[in-house]
């Protein structure tokens, strides 16, 4: 019995150690648009609070000129699949999924919201010749309306 407990403890220790060593730290795909002025560390800690705050402004007060909208999240952080189109959260490698899987936190957003950008943005990405960075940034800036 004692030996069993010791073995288990060692195993747990090893696995946490491995996680802490960063070997399984998630890949963070690069975003399409300009970086957050607040910095990534701030966003990692606070994105859910910002979203929750601004969603109430939009849904209840009709304020469309908010700074943090999930539509803009999924557009700017779109990750392209093999067909060069944005993938959904159902697929491995989706921006939100990568970290949330690592942190073992369930995402409740995509039960209702689309995890892929809106049609207009996808059209922009499909454009031939490809859209310039400025065009993409201009579209993203326009999304909070």
């Amino acid at each position: 019995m004692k030996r069993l407990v010791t073995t288990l403890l060692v195993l747990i220790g090893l696995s946490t150690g491995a996680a802490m060593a960063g070997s399984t730290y998630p890949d963070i795909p690069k975003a399409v648009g300009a970086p957050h002025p607040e910095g990534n560390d701030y966003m990692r800690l606070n994105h859910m609070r910002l979203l929750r705050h601004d969603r109430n402004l939009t849904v209840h007060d009709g304020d469309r000129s908010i700074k943090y909208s999930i539509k803009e999240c999924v557009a700017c952080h779109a990750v392209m699949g093999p067909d060069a189109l944005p993938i959904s959260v159902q697929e491995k490698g989706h921006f939100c999924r990568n970290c949330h899987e690592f942190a073992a936190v369930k995402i409740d957003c995509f039960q209702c919201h689309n995890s892929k950008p809106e049609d207009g943005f996808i059209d922009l990405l499909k454009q031939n010749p490809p859209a310039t960075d400025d065009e993409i940034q201009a579209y993203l800036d326009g999304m909070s309306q």
Partner: protein
Amino acid sequence: MKLPALNNKSERPAELNRREFFKSGAAVASVTLAPGVTLMAFGGEASANADPGKRWGMLIDVNKCSTDCNACVTACSEENGWKLDGNPETDPQWIRKIDLKHKETGREASLPMMCQHCETPPCVDVCPTGASFKRVDGIVLVDKHICIGCRYCMMACPFKARSFVHEEIEDQKSNAPRGKGTVESCTLCVHRVDAGRVPACVESCSATGNGAMMFGDLNDPNSEIAQALKNYPSMGLRDDLRVNPGVRYTNL
């Protein structure tokens, strides 16, 4: 953890720029995107918040609505991403066509039916969490973030305007988030209204040439809709309940 004061927008110069960009953008959009007569009359400029001075409403001319036309339903479904999937009992239906035949006189009529955006909505009264609410400009909505799916609003609605999402949904329209286990209904295309446009059903109705649906601000005495309501007889459905619907019908 301390958060910055989120309400204080003046602290964020980037925010102001963005909003300005939009105000001009919306004025242009309202002209180029929907060149209908109603729309021109409505005009429009996006404001930052829902305007408490307005009450959005609709006037439906039953005489102009034809039995075999389903354009408003199709347009709504396309705009908001809901589909009739062959399960009439559980499929969502934000807007539906109802065919009427008078029991005594045999008169026949057809009309679109959706959330009536009541002034005193029973769905809002009964909602335990406040998920069912009325915006200051009269639009009745479900905040799906706090809807627990109890369906009491569906019991209370006099118009059967609401449906419950019975299945998992994928690939929603970005402007119309909707998901399993919550209640939904016509939003009066709130995303379009906030951008200074008219609801999809109204736009499609004028595109067919029937022009049976008119949208506008009931509180503005000079609006086309207020003028029409002033000059011609109209009624709200279940007027006996005194819920004062924002959707009104004429020639019914």
